[in-house]
């Protein structure tokens, strides 16, 4: 099974149905490569910027999404020649913003993951810690067809 198929299969209904029961959905697909994380951050600014979050909250969301993308890109770096993508799905509701960051990078076993240098590992750990702190809910799942999905939730009510 190619990575492409996995990404398509795992894709939520975002592209076909941009508004579902009063929930607006914005989806963005980027190549799983360093130069596109900035594009994702700008799009997230466009989404979160309209929801009444504070400046700091918006920056927290941008950084958390950036970390999830970076994690996917670093995992993709271990698979030579991989043509992977990242799909970002934003669910906009009055009380919360839910962002799913999904990649089709084949999941490594523990050994392969452990092969990275010490510096890289601490970076990945840091990214996970940042996500946990910056948003209200984080769930990371390995997808059946290969790939990973990070689900981030930020509530507008923190907005105190």
């Amino acid at each position, binding site marked *: 099974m190619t990575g492409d198929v996995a990404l398509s299969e795992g894709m939520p209904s975002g592209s076909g149905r941009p508004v579902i029961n009063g929930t607006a959905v914005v989806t963005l697909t980027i190549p799983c490569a*360093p*130069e596109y*994380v*900035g594009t994702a*951050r700008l799009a997230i600014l466009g989404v979160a910027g309209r929801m009444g979050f504070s400046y*700091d909250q918006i*920056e927290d969301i*941008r*950084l958390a999404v*950036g*970390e999830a*993308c*970076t994690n996917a*890109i*670093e995992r993709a770096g271990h698979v030579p020649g991989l043509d992977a993508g990242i799909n970002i799905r934003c669910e906009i509701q009055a009380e919360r913003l839910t962002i799913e960051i999904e990649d089709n990078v084949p999941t490594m076993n523990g050994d392969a993951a452990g092969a990275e240098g010490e*510096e*890289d590992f*601490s*970076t*990945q750990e*840091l*990214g996970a*810690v*940042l996500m946990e*702190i*910056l948003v209200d809910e984080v769930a990371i799942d390995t997808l059946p067809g290969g790939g990973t999905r990070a689900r981030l939730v930020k509530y507008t009510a923190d907005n105190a």
Partner: protein
Amino acid sequence: METTNMNLKVTPRSLDNDTRVLDLEGEVDVYTAPLLRQEIMDQVDAGVKRLLVNLAKVEYLDSTGLGILIGGVKRMREQGGVLRLVAPPPRITRIFDITGLNRIFEVHATEAEALA
């Protein structure tokens, strides 16, 4: 020499034979971090004893950038030098605090303070 990579600019500045400053401007992320790593390694290789990294104009710093700075602190220490961070904006101070990296980094509000 000044190096630009779209969203990150790194400008080295000599204060004396042993002391250099890297003025950063823009975003340090997975795309631009290799540029920062190279600039820091160049200073390490040049045998600099005190390396200040000026963060005043950094708009974004992610775990990749943090990793490069941690690596820089280690490399400088290995050769008996120090790497100090100068003038981080509030957002970045916050990141140092919530990650606990404020215990690893030497952070100074001004260049003068970092040189004292």
